[in-house]
């Protein structure tokens, strides 16, 4: 894939100009990263089999709460982590895209299970071959369905990724006003 694809633009990552930030900016970024990685409000987009494993991960034995990521928000507006749990087919794709679009920045996406990652062994007329064809994905968790340990590993990888990203208190520029007329 080419790096210029708009799918690969993660909004929270800074451009090169911002790399030349002051030490204060870096401290702010690290602080924000630390805060954001431990307060992941997730939106579980549960469709299929993986949902059963997702329930197990959220329950007492594996306890997603230890990572600050257990509280599901059932409105995409309040969530910053989209967990796509299960198969997404062609009919479901526009809905997933719409849910993703209505989430506020910064936002991250986890493809939970092999169907969300690549379509799995459903290579046929109905199933989309991975959600990364319509939305960007931060962490892929393989497995059909993944074991809970894998899910926890994926969550920790995402946290590491969030910590390493460049965060800002305020955005760069306000969006350009539409031309008059």
């Amino acid at each position, binding site marked *: 894939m080419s790096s210029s694809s708009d799918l690969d633009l993660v909004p929270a990552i800074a451009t090169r100009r911002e790399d030349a930030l002051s030490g204060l900016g870096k401290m702010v970024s690290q602080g924000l990263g630390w805060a954001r990685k431990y307060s992941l409000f997730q939106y579980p987009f549960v469709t299929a089999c993986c949902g059963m494993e997702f329930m*197990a991960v959220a329950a007492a034995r594996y306890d997603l709460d230890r990572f600050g990521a257990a509280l599901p928000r059932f409105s995409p507006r309040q969530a910053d982590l989209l967990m796509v749990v299960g198969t997404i087919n062609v009919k479901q794709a526009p809905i997933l895209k719409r849910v993703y679009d209505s989430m506020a920045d910064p936002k991250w996406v986890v493809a939970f299970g092999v169907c969300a990652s690549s379509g799995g062994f459903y290579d046929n007329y109905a199933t989309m071959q991975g959600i990364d064809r319509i939305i960007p994905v931060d962490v892929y968790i393989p497995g059909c369905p993944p074991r809970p340990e894998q899910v926890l590993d994926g969550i920790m990888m995402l946290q590491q990724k969030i910590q390493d990203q460049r965060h800002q208190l305020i955005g760069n520029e306000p969006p350009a006003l539409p031309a008059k007329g």
Partner: protein
Amino acid sequence: MAKDTDNLLVVPPVPEASPLDAPFPSKRMLVNLGPSHPAMHGTVRAVVELDGETIHGMKLDIGFLHRGFEKSCENVTWTQVFPYTDRLNYVSSIMNNVGYAMAVEKLCDLAIPDRAKYLRVITSELHRMCDHLTLVSAMGLELGAMTVLIYGMEARDLIWDRLTELCGARLTSNYARVGGVSRDIPEGWADKVLRTLDRSNEMVDEIDRLLTRNRIVIDRTRGTGVISRADAIDYGFTGPCLRASGEPYDVRKASPYLIYDRLDFDIPVGTNGDNFDRYLMRMEEMKQSDRIVRQCFEQMQPGAIASDDPRFVLPPKPEVYGSIEGAMAHFKIIMEGIRVPAGEAYACVEAANGELGFYAVSDGGGRPYKLGVRAPGWNMLMALPQIMEGRMLADLIPTFDTVNMIGGEVEQ
């Protein structure tokens, strides 16, 4: 008991209203629930026409989890279909395996050894408990009792641990094979299962104490989502939902398959056909499954776990590595698939939600020509608009829970 709760439902009469107290004029409103909605587990879209809180019309739109099960199955060998059947009803996958294996064995006219039958029944019943635990936990969660989920998931995890020792996977177990099962039980497994069941039963009892006499649960499930016995049959209900309406149909008793005729167990039957009865059926069936598993372990004898018919079953590994015939047989079955005689057959098992039937057509080749699934949840979901007609919107949630629609099997 019915009397007590009936009184709660009676709305006190409204005194003659003055024009000042008259309600605002209202109009009907269309509300879209789903397909990604927390209370619609699975991915069903329901368009509900509301008058205040009352449902006046409902349309269901499914297919958001249609993943081409049949088309995929037509393009793989008969044995490769097993993983696909796992993901039909993913909460109780072994029963799907068994149902499919039985359909193919019916086509092949293949008898399987006793031990394989016992193993199939044991694992099926363990998965039936998992399925019911999931339903009860999800219902508790959606009625606001998060604790039930914690207990239910822990009990389910315990059973899954044992199944992992047997099959290597937590929920998509891929255990049955044409002609038998894939693995024999590990040493000491039977004893471990029995002790696991003791522990999970404690948790089931805990759930029972939390829910069954809980006033909130009773108020929300008693008398909601009612379907009469005649309607239930007309819609093709099977399984716990049909039995909750008073019809004692269970494939395990009506036409016993495998070794169910050698076992002593009861079929719970309800009377009201409401959500509470459907919930009670599940709780009781878990106890009966426990009885079945214990009896199976007592009756089971050592022996072969798969038929030795070289046309359908892989030869034992020493033979594959040691003789040319064994290697050939192995190669042919793996590469071309087993040659199932041409014909068509319908086999059904009692899955956790009801009669799960497989209609298999073979053209004599190594791949299924057609594989249709009669998913039990299909009929239950189909009846939902009629059940909910004229009821409150809030009743939709427990009803949706107790009919236990599983996306994988309904939308295939």
